[in-house]
């Protein structure tokens, strides 16, 4: 399916949902504050990722959609990158609003500030209905169009891991390690990265890099998340520079077992909590029950924006059913008292029956002498 068909399909589905909700106009907002755990609704409908603080797609049941945005100099890019032909400066939005647009729905309210929302309510003479469910429901299963981008991002994520293996060395600073990964992924076209790479002989958690100098025996942990076309793929891996401390391999084997069992539990139709239970069960069996909670871990995986972040967090309370076409990260990242925090995780695609990893790097801990 080409891009035009893909977006025509999406708009058709949105209009169908609008009719069901008796909405005559839908306003879709983005603030330019990209969050990789939340959808970018405007990008989902337009294929345009905004840079300015106010972007609004106005969609009626019949008329051509209009994209309003700031800054005005970015209109040319919006016309080129999106399928929307009518792109206007955001200032002209206000003249288009009023009673005549009928019952209005709003998607992206969560990203709005109070002043803008109040201005919108005044201009509409109504409080628009929060209609985010329309897109959240539509987007939960990735289309082939999205999967193509995700596969490209997955290849880039693997390349980032390989670059770290190739170029990490004692004497570099943490931020230089992170730069190695970033460089490789950007040079392959990645637009953004939710990436953290840190090194210590006993890591407490992942965090953005510091100026700490890497030393022999350090465990390097990484959470690498390149973005292609607004869609993120994450991979988590662990490596050691020099000789690993005793127990590192033994304890890392628990993460690998948890990863395998977590993937086995990720059956289509199973609840997201089943994955968390399988991973937690592995650590409990190994004697680490009290570490299966914050601050020793956060969640056992999660959806990834700026597309749909379904199924949400992989945790005990999440009973969301895993559906074919969902993509999310499974990561039994864990602090263990003997070794510190270690990381292992793959983004998976739910197929007709089970989860298939999209990233391909070996699960083995990589030891570089």
């Amino acid at each position, binding site marked *: 399916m080409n891009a035009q068909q893909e977006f025509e399909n999406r708009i058709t589905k949105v209009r169908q949902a609008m009719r069901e909700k008796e909405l005559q106009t839908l306003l879709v907002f983005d603030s330019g504050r990209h*969050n990789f755990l939340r959808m970018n609704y405007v990008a989902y409908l337009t294929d345009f990722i905004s840079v*300015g603080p106010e972007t609004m797609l106005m969609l009626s049941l019949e008329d051509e959609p209009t994209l309003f945005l700031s800054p005005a*100099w970015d209109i040319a890019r919006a016309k080129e990158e999106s399928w929307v032909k009518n792109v206007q400066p955001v200032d002209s939005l206000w003249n288009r609003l009023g009673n005549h647009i009928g019952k209005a729905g709003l998607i992206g309210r969560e990203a709005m500030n109070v002043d803008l929302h109040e201005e919108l309510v005044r201009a509409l003479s109504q409080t628009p209905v929060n209609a985010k469910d329309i897109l959240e429901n539509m987007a939960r299963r990735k289309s082939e169009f999205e999967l193509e981008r995700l596969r490209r991002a997955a290849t880039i994520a693997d390349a980032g891991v390989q670059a770290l293996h190739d170029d990490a060395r004692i004497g570099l600073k943490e931020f230089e390690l992170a730069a190695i990964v970033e*460089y490789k992924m950007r040079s392959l*076209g*990645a637009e953004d990265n939710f990436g953290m790479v840190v090194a210590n002989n006993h890591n407490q958690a992942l965090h953005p890099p510091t100026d700490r100098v890497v030393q022999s025996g350090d465990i390097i942990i990484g959470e690498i998340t390149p973005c292609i076309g607004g869609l993120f793929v994450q991979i988590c891996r662990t490596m050691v520079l020099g000789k690993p401390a005793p127990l590192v391999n033994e304890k890392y084997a628990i993460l690998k077992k948890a990863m395998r069992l977590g993937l086995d539990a990720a059956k289509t139709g199973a609840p997201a909590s089943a994955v968390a239970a399988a991973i937690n069960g592995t650590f409990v069996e190994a004697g680490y029950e009290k570490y299966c909670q914050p601050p020793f871990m956060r969640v056992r995986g999660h959806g990834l924006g700026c597309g749909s972040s379904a199924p949400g967090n992989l945790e005990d309370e999440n009973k969301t059913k895993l559906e074919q076409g969902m993509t999310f990260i499974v990561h039994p990242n864990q602090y263990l008292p003997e070794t510190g925090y270690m990381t292992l995780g793959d983004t998976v695609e739910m197929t007709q029956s089970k989860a298939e990893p999209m990233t391909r790097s070996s699960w083995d801990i990589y030891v570089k002498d």
Partner: protein
Amino acid sequence: MIFGRHSVLKRGCSTWDKQQMPQEEYQGRLEIVRQKMAQQGLDALVIYGDNYAYADLCYLTNYFPKVRGGIGVIPRSGTISLLLNIGSRDVPFAKTLTWVDDVRASGHLGRDCADVLKEKGLAQAKVGLVDSGKGMPLPQLEELKESLPQVQWQPSHSMLQQMRLQKSAKELAALRETGRVLNEICDGAREFINPGRREYEIIADIDRLARDKGVEDIRILSGEKRLQPPSFKMTANAGNHWAVYLAIQHERYWVEVGRTYILSSESKLQSAYQKAQEIVAQMAMQLKRGNSVKVIDETARKQLGEFYATAANYGLGNGIGLNQWEAPYLSEDEARQVGSVSVGASVLNENMTLALRVTFETEGKLILFGDSYEVTPDGPKSLTIK
């Protein structure tokens, strides 16, 4: 105004250089803020910041959110609290970036902030709300206000903005250091820009250079005919002409430049770029204490003639510091673009810092030159060019 694509995570070097910005600096600021609070009868301030606009929060705490947002609760006396939308495992690292002792992880900033105010005995207080970056998500604000029905809220967005207008000696030193790093990046970038390379490959090289120098964040926009952020759709190969907007955040402070790399001997383009540099220099000459901010725009208008409209579209400049764009804004329109109700200052003063730029099209190509300056008693001084 020039906006770059906002990164999902500030993933560059994250440290606190306490020599450059010692804790005493923050104590001094806090005392002044508390005096202002007393003058306005405020019992507390609630300051919102996120990884898009963190200036107000960082100005008092040195902390800048890496991802999502945070709230500083500043009572008129007593302990400051910092609520961050992070996991509890991330708190120890967050504490390395701030002098504030009471740092808490929060999954629901609005509700948790209300709890902190109650805990401090401020459930019926008069509280100033600071969100000059207009970033506090509506549901969080609603949750905060609904949880504290007896609090009297007062918009106080400009309180810290006014304090941040004139930089302290420590801040100016930090800005000059950021400028020095940015200058090195610009010099290094030249060798990466070769015809035939994909644009995103060139950007990867520049980005690497910046990250290897320890920047916290970077914005790059580039192109032959217009500025655009890095995109996987940017498959064109670079030609002989490339305009680049570069802004870096280093130890919290932003500095920006604009450059045009003309690799041909095309004399019209060379002279246009020379003209752009001259116009920015003339705009910068207006950076004197007591001058009206408007005079910068008037100078540009006079010099640019028919090219003014394009240049104004991209923005001719703005204040720069803890925010990539901040007061003073050169026009009401520029201020409005970032949600500010005013230009912040109509008259220039010493120790203000501003980014100035000129962008126009000629011969089908984009010409961009820009630099960042401080206003000194002796006139303008570039933060990047020695």
